[in-house]
């Protein structure tokens, strides 16, 4: 077989991956349409279109524009952010148990938020979100610094390659546990903080409003840009540090960019929506059998699946227990986990 015969096959593989990406995008659009039309007040698709393109101030227009659209947009942002962050995290740690929370992001946000309630008496949501984001960033920086400690002159690898997967994971777990303990102590001593905290930790995208969407958008976009830049380096890194160095990859830089991306993405999502750890943990495992091990494909697949799953879970949560709603975090776990377990049982899981 000649070289010219191999090239079309390589292109065929790319075409298959691209078309699958289109399918996932369509699934996300469908989920978004459902999220805009379904709820306590169902809105026909035509009316929804009307509300989006030429609003005239009808009840439907108001419901759609002020409630459903921000909620859907936040769901898309958070889903993409958490899915991509989860895939990055598992790639960097090479650990299937790794979720974005492992960098301390979730517990950092939680601790900052409950502390701000107690200390400053902060009461409005937007205020929490800034503080949550700040807490997430601070915790992540601490974890990265602690996990990066590698042997100075006594280190195994030359020139310090940033954190090893195991030290990063352990440092993250330790810092998370510490912050969680402090958060528990605060909420046990302050009833108001407890009341805010318990709703935050169950995870929801309801009633956040458009302002929150705009608030987290820049962080998510910046995180996605870093993630895209990180994908090729992560591919090289998955062949082992020596091979990656041989391919001209700067290991420490790759790790740092990856951690920055995970921090921005999951920090924004967690601060706005509470702990939706399930998305980051499980979605990459759903995406990997479809995308293969190439992170340039795994990351977008994970993002799209994460967003579609989050929206669908939210829609189900709206209709399943009328007149109330179930928080999206609970629905995600209740629906996603059995599906996930089934998948794990049916096929040989793809190891990292």
């Amino acid at each position, binding site marked *: 077989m000649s070289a010219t015969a191999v090239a079309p096959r390589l292109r065929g593989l790319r075409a298959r991956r691209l078309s699958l990406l289109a399918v996932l995008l369509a699934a996300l659009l469908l989920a978004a349409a459902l999220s805009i039309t379904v709820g306590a007040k169902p809105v026909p698709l035509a009316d929804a279109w009307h509300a989006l393109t030429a609003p005239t101030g009808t009840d439907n227009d108001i419901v759609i524009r002020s409630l459903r659209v921000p909620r859907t947009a936040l769901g898309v942002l958070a889903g993409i952010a958490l899915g991509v962050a989860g895939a990055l995290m598992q790639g960097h740690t090479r650990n299937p148990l790794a979720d974005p929370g492992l960098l301390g992001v979730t517990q950092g946000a939680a601790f900052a938020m409950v502390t701000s309630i107690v200390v400053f008496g902060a009461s409005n949501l937007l205020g929490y979100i800034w503080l949550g984001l700040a807490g997430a960033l601070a915790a992540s920086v601490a974890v990265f610094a602690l996990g990066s400690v590698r042997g100075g002159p006594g280190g195994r690898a030359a020139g310090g390659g940033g954190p090893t997967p195991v030290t990063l994971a352990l440092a993250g777990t330790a810092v998370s546990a510490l912050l969680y303990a402090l958060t528990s102590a605060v909420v046990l001593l302050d009833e108001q903080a407890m009341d805010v905290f318990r709703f935050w930790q169950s995870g929801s995208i309801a009633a956040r409003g458009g302002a929150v969407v705009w608030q987290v958008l820049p962080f998510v976009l910046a995180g996605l840009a870093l993630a895209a830049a990180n994908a090729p380096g992560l591919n090289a890194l998955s062949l082992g540090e020596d091979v990656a160095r041989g391919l001209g990859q700067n290991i420490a830089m790759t790790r740092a960019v990856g951690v920055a991306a995970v921090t921005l993405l999951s920090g924004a999502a967690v601060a706005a929506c509470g702990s939706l750890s399930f998305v980051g*943990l*499980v979605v990459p495992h759903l995406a990997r059998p479809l995308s293969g091990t190439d992170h340039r494909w795994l990351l977008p697949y994970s993002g799209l699946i994460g967003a579609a799953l989050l929206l669908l879970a939210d829609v189900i949560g709206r209709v399943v227990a009328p007149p109330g709603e179930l928080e999206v975090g609970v629905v995600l776990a209740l629906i996603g986990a059995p599906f*996930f377990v089934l998948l794990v049982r049916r096929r040989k899981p793809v190891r990292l």
Partner: protein
Amino acid sequence: MTALPVRVAGLSFRVRPRGVAVTLAGLAVLVLLMALNMRLGNISMSLGSVVTGVLDPASPDHFVVMELRLPRALAGALVGAALALSGAITQSVARNPLASPEILGVTTGASVAVVAGIVAAGNVYGGVSGLLSTLGVPALALLGGLTGAALVYALAWRRGLDGYRLVLVGIGVAAVFTNVKFWLLTIGDVDDTGRAMVWISGSLNARGWEHVTPVALALAVLVPATLLGARSLDALRFGDDTVTALGVRMNAARALMILAAVLLAAVATAAAGPIAFVALAAPQIALRLARTGRPPLLSSAVVGAVLTAGSDLLARTAFSPVELPVGVVTAVLGAPYLIHLIWRART
């Protein structure tokens, strides 16, 4: 790490001096902590009055020492040992330092059952007290823990128990339980949520002999059993092909060791709630202190006991008269120490 062969009358073992040293040093610290735990409290007493309190039923301190402080101190040490041993086994079988009994469904299952009980009883029967708190909560925890573990076990079992599949299934089941727990916390009255949070954090407050006995019995049976099984854990660290080649009946060994881990965690959780971080951190701390390849079982248990007993001492006395749940303190003490060890190890 070198292992010294010890041969006595036809029996032969390999003993790692460093592991033994860690275990013995840990036990010494534990004794010290127990003594402090007995002395300190609302009324501090001298070591002498503690001793007379133990020995002399007529002593005025007898009740405080024998009925309040001793059982609580023992409960802390035993629960910590059981959780740590459970964690050491889980991490060895899963070959993953992040694995803990949480992925076996035990602690999360117990949490759901207990939170459901507290929330339901809180609304219907007007608060958790009396029979429900002394008997009902541990029973619920045990039931929930074992149910959760059975679920994970059954779902992960497919012509054997693969460590990797166990971890993944465990993640899924734990996610459901955790989120259901979060949801239950939002539907209850905020007072009930507070009570539930105390239990979820893990607390040794007001633990008596009735809590000590089950954990002690479980440890008495399971510690020797797991130590006998430890040889198979060494083999399990290698891939499945190697394990089979080494002649370990892999599935049976793995399944039995996991069963032991489940029972240990379930009994400990029933007694004191899912005390955070001990099961995960104690094995990792012990591993670094003893410089072994996998978490050493006995040293892990001792480290777990020290961590929990020490944390309870702080939880009880640091902010007196307010008592913190011990689980809040375990992470505050354990996390910096683990980080220090990672730092020092320079791997």
